[in-house]
């Protein structure tokens, strides 16, 4: 029922390529190059070598026993993407795309970033491949993810703060697209999530699919069976598509995407496009979109910069429509509680993005049997969020 491959970048009625004409030829060139290299065993071997030797794959599937015991239900396994080089799953996609840019002969790379994880990963890969790197980042995110800004700069990238609009990820993508429209002839746009115009949703999914492939094999090795649920947080959807893609054909395995509920869905300030949005077109793709009745894109809010985005990848929209995946919202407060519980029971500081998935596992595990197990994609580590967390602790203390 769920097809992995796509025609012309469509996932049912979602996806497509809604971009200014200036960019169409570049997207076609990229699609052709990707089609060529994705079939090229030498490229794939090189990519896998970088994943293993440089990023430190495969990532562990870790049984979080103390967390599981505390909750008293299903066993919880963490897919430790936080242990990758640069601290999140973002490096998987970026190594693939930087290699692609390198093969395509592009010398200049641009990227957008929300939490800064994709920006750091891109700056890292550009240093590794000798490419120049400019990263667009919302001014609000520059402030709340200051540590990542410094990391990017130390890696030789230029960080451009975008103060337009809501000064978050959406506006960083707008500016990156404007840069690409202007410099398309010599520039590779390293898109960070499984969204945007075709072929990005497919490219990013494929480069991230290593997460799901490993997780499925590890399930079979460790538990001798498949999980009773796979949980991932969803901003644009790259870590979710990465882990879900390993289980799409296993229809008995529920896939649960966790969106940012912000202050709460009924409060209006959130970033849960699949839970509360309607289909629309933004940043090149038809997908679910948080918009007003006139089609203007709404400003979003999440404590997690990487989830603070009004749309979502088109394949996730399709999986929702098909009923293959379920989407829920976790609000800021619940995510902070999830962070605290994982920190105190397991000694792991998750990224605030991943903390949304942790919070959902905390809700679900007690309702499940002890002979069942959940895989939670721990997409990134929380070091970058200590500033935000210090503020939250301060708020509680006041």
């Amino acid at each position, binding site marked *: 029922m769920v097809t992995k491959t796509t025609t012309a970048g469509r996932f049912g009625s979602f996806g*497509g390529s809604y971009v*200014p004409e200036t960019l169409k030829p570049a997207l076609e060139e990229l699609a052709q190059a990707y089609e060529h290299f994705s079939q090229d065993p030498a490229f794939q071997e090189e990519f896998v070598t970088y994943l293993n030797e440089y990023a430190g794959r495969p990532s562990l599937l870790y049984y979080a026993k103390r967390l599981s015991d505390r909750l008293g239900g299903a066993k919880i396994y963490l897919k430790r993407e936080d242990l990758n080089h640069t601290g999140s799953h973002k490096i998987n996609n970026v190594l693939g795309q930087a290699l692609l840019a390198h093969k395509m002969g592009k010398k200049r790379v641009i990227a957008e970033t929300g939490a800064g994880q994709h920006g750091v990963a891109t700056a890292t890969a550009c240093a590794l491949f000798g490419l120049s790197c400019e990263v667009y980042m919302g001014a609000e995110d520059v402030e709340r993810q200051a540590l990542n800004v410094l990391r990017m700069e130390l890696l030789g990238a230029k960080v451009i703060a975008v103060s337009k609009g809501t000064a978050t990820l959406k506006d960083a993508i707008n500016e990156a*697209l404007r840069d690409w429209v*202007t410099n*398309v002839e010599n520039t590779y746009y390293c898109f960070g999530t499984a969204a945007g115009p075709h072929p990005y949703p497919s490219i990013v999914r494929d480069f991230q699919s290593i997460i799901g492939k490993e997780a499925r094999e590890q399930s079979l090795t460790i538990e001798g069976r498949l999980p009773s649920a796979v949980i991932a947080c969803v901003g644009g959807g790259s870590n979710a598509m990465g882990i879900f893609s390993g289980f799409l054909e296993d229809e008995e395995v529920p896939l649960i995407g966790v969106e940012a509920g912000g202050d709460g869905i009924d409060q209006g300030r959130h970033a849960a496009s699949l839970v509360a949005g309607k289909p629309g*077109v933004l*940043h090149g793709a038809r997908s679910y979109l948080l918009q007003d009745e*006139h089609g203007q894109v709404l400003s979003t809010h999440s404590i997690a910069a990487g989830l603070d985005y009004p749309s979502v990848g088109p394949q996730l929209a399709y999986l929702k429509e098909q009923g293959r995946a379920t989407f829920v919202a976790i609000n800021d407060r619940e995510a902070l509680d999830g962070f605290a519980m994982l920190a105190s029971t397991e000694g792991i500081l998750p990224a605030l993005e991943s903390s949304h998935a942790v919070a959902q596992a905390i809700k679900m595990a007690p309702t499940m049997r002890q002979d069942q197990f959940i895989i939670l994609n721990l997409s990134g580590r929380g070091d970058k969020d200590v500033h935000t967390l210090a503020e939250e602790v301060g708020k509680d203390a006041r």
Partner: protein
Amino acid sequence: MLDNARGTAKIEATFEALRKEGRKAFIPFITAGDPDLRTTKELVLAMEQAGAHIIELGVPFSDPVADGPVIQAATSRALDGGTTLSSVLNLVQQLRQETDVPLVLMTYYNLLLAYGLEKFAQVGAEVGIDGVIIADLPVEEGDELRELLDPVGLALIPLVAPTSTKERLELIAEKARGFIYCVSLTGVTGERQDLPPDGEKLIQRMREVTSLPLALGFGISKPEQIPLIAQKADAVIVGSAIVKKIEENLNSKEKLLNETTDFVRQMVQALPQ
């Protein structure tokens, strides 16, 4: 019942009349609702008086990725004033009591999707727009809208860019209605001091695949640039430089109307007569 002299037919007739006289068209762009719709109405009427042959009205969208800083700022002003696609269509209806000048909307696809494509075709024809340009709707994605606009006679006017391949130019030409918007440079909207030669080359390449009128836009900011462009193109489109006049005169409506209109008149007069 739709008047014969509206929509694609009206645009074609406008270009045909100019062609017979050996003249070229001037197409100003302003963002509707910048700073308010009443001013937009007065500007449209004044620009027609100043000699504009077709007028483009931008319908503001929250995320205008094809636009540079000047039109982004105009978009913000218009959105702050609550401008919507509905309110712009109402404005066109009012304008049609007073002017016959061809009016083309320029916007982004999500606004039409939210309004409803069928409803847009129907209401657009009823109120008397002539065509629409969608900055983020490339030819591959345009069939659904075009198939709704064709029966009501409205033009879906495509854009072509210096980066477009020959195959794409042919495909776009085949599906174009009214005229073709040739983007003069690789970039977003906005004034440029000097225009790259890309626009002229694009016009030449486009002539080989279509007999439709060709309008050149993006980056054109000065009356001195007009004569050279008008040698090659059938129409000159100017947006940001006009919007800049509005921005510079937000504190005085009278000055805003006068300066903007004077600038449009200078542009029109710079066309070869």
